[in-house]
């Protein structure tokens, strides 16, 4: 019963009125930061690090504050995804696919409650997983070499087919576009700049936040102007806000599966929350009985990715704490915070600094419960955003997006780039090309290429190295199945879902 006594130790440190207050503020600010497009968990946490220093917080208090912001932002990202079709942060991208259609049907409240509960579910189980299994799970990272990571990314791209539209060619085109954009910048394997045209701002490649805000937020504004807001969720008559117990019961399985997949993606340093929510969504889409409604407002399509991304956020703490390897941008910032507090995560952290680890875990549990309590009643507040006149709301959102992007690097270059992505997003929408694969390509393209080339360096150019371990063969098999199965299934079911989705494409 070591764990219980450790946990008691953690709670004894983390449960003081002062830290509870910090957790509350952190959750609140985090939710807001998460909901604002352009301000994601990583720059939210980064913005707060200097504040925690100037407030003179001790290590534990600073950790409590920032982990609450971290979890808060993971919860908050879904709000603007659902209400405005603009993901507040990158893992919430998948939530737009079904969350926004739900909002257009006047079920914004339901979508927010379901996703809030799913977030809680995912984050809670992931924190428990972290608590029970962290030292054990850290070993998983040692099993993943370049070949295995490459196969994992291939799995993601092979299952892309049905995202947003059921036209696989369009999804493939979008993914190729994203992969192409990912090639911009310094090439890790040769140290040479590619497609930068001597422009320093392109040396690090294109930040996916710039792309995501451009493709979703800015293009949404263009579309809104063009259509005079005819088919947006703004101003839609809302049903009475109740807790949708029936949907919660129905999506229970989706949450559990999403949590499992997300947590696994989280503990792999090369994967992270975006991949977690993506795979959770795609997996749910292929097993759910309600799969025909995916993309048109299926509650499962909201529950699975939200459980997935929050579980991944918890899972990502495993490699961060036990190996010092951040699995995502946000854990990189949390790692930085630990280092500045003179705590070096690594294999010895759990034995050398149990007070830090267990109070962090206690803080996560506190933040999680607090967020659930805060989020469900606040749904009423959030949905009222939709009754704000569009001429106030959209310029406001756009302004926040610009500020957020400017805060990334402090250069106007990124803002121009963001507008360019907005135009691209608008064109894609006209052509019925889904934008999610573009983002996925930008997010994973570099890592996928680097791992392929690392594998080739290690094996002296022998391509069979890519299939040389049990894990990689398993992932390749899943990838091939994920690619081929939908085509066969469609033929057998003799119910091509294409007409149904085309109507979604048009709106």
């Amino acid at each position, binding site marked *: 019963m070591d764990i219980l006594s450790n946990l008691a130790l953690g709670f004894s440190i983390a449960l003081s009125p002062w830290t509870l207050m910090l957790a509350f503020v952190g959750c609140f*600010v985090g939710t*807001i930061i998460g909901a604002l497009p352009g301000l994601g968990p990583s720059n939210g946490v*980064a*913005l707060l*690090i*200097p*504040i925690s220093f*100037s407030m003179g917080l001790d290590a534990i208090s600073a950790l409590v504050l920032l982990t609450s912001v971290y979890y808060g932002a993971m919860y908050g990202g879904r709000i603007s995804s659902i209400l405005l079709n603009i993901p507040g942060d990158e893992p919430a991208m998948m939530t737009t696919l079904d969350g926004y259609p739900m909002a257009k049907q006047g079920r914004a409240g339901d979508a927010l409650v379901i996703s809030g509960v799913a977030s809680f579910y995912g984050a809670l189980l992931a924190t428990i997983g972290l608590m029970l299994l962290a030292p054990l799970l850290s070993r998983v*990272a*040692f*099993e*993943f*070499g*370049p070949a295995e990571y490459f196969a994992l990314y291939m799995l993601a791209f092979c299952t892309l087919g049905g995202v947003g539209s059921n036209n696989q060619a369009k999804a493939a085109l979008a993914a190729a576009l994203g992969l192409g954009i990912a090639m911009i910048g*310094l*090439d*890790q*394997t*040769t*140290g*040479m*700049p590619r497609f930068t045209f*001597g422009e*320093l*701002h392109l*040396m*690090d490649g294109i930040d996916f936040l710039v792309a995501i805000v451009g493709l979703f937020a800015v293009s949404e504004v263009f579309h809104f102007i063009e259509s005079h807001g005819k088919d947006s969720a703004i101003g839609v008559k809302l049903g009475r806000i109740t807790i949708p117990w029936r949907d919660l019961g129905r999506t229970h399985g989706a949450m559990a599966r999403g949590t499992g997949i997300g947590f696994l993606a989280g503990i792999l*340093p090369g994967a992270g929350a975006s991949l977690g929510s993506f795979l959770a969504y795609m997996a749910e889409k292929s097993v759910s009985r309600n799969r025909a409604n995916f993309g048109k407002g299926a509650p499962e399509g909201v529950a699975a990715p939200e459980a997935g991304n929050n579980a991944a956020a918890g899972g990502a703490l495993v490699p961060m704490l036990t*190996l*010092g*390897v*951040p699995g995502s941008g946000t854990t*990189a*910032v949390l*790692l*930085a*915070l630990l*280092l*500045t507090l*003179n705590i*070096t*995560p*690594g*294999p*010895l*952290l759990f034995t050398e600094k149990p007070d830090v680890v267990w109070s962090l875990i206690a803080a996560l549990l506190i933040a999680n419960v607090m967020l659930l309590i805060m989020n469900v009643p*606040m749904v009423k*507040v*959030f949905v*009222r*955003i939709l009754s704000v006149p569009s001429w106030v709301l959209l310029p406001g959102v756009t302004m926040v997006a610009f500020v957020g992007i400017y805060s*990334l*690097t*402090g*250069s106007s270059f990124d803002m121009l780039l963001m507008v360019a992505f907005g135009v691209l997003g608008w064109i894609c929408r006209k052509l019925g090309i889904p934008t999610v694969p573009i983002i996925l390509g930008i997010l994973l393209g570099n890592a996928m290429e*680097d791992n392929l080339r*690392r594998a080739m*360096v*290690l094996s*002296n150019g022998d391509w069979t190295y890519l299939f040389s371990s049990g894990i990689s063969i398993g992932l390749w098999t899943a990838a091939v199945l994920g690619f081929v199965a939908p085509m066969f299934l469609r033929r057998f079911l003799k119910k091509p879902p294409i007409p149904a989705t085309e109507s979604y494409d048009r709106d």
Partner: protein
Amino acid sequence: MTKTFAAALRAGVLMTLVGATSATAAECIAPANPGGGWDFTCRQIGRILQEIGLESNLVQVTNMAGAGGGVAYTHVVSERDADPELIVAASSATTTRLAQNAFAGMTADQVRWVGTIAGDPGVIVVGKDSPFQTLSDLIEAVKADPSAVSFAGGSAVGGFDHLKVLMLMDRAGFEDARAIKYIGLDGGADAITQTVGGFTQAMTGDISEIQGFIRSGDVRALAVLSDERVSGFEDIPTAKEQGVDLVAMNWRGLYAPKGISDEEFARWTDALQKVADSDQWKQVMTENGLSPYTLIGADFQTFVNDNIAEIQEISREIGIIQ
């Protein structure tokens, strides 16, 4: 809605407060996002400057990420060239990139090099079950068949971790730098997982980022690339002891704009010297696995020039620059 607004307002006020305090204070640019070595340099030096009374206000830390420090470098050269209140964090990565002309034609003589006050010694490690027991085992294995030994490191090809391997083999008399296999990962800890997992045979990094793995016994350190053994890790022999004359310190230091007067520059060198001598800095170094490595003013300028010349030579050899 009002609640939401109030919270947004509160966050906004907090942020402006932080911005406002710094209006008249010195500024330290960390040319990367919060959390890296440069951010650490700025925050720690800034804090100590205030604690020992050299700066009355909090030193404002600005994070200006981009192009591995290139965005900040061009910003300083082109827009802040005469700002006496500005210092910028730098490290081996800065001189490496300058040497490789990665800052869009900018050169090292366009700023004034204030000094370095700590170093993170390089280290070469292998997995705990590795057949290599000493540095020379490893070197001989590479010489015998370079394709059989691969190195992982925390920087891209041509970056400082890669150069450590190349310089090591160069000093050991191995000429064919292009034959040495190296894969670049995102940071030392990431590179360690590849070595512990057995995907690469050896790993090179800075000692501070992988100290946990050395102490836990997941990896075995063959050599530390410093002048003397590192305190806390006295059982790791230096490369010098093992017959390879290589010191590779990832130094932590500062540069200032070119256009400031000699007096203004002297103010920074004096201040940095005082930080280096302070107890607070000594504590920071112990807690973070850094070693003393102090070169200030003219000494540092010479060091930077020599360092750049050496990196240019190796980079030409492996074809990173012409």
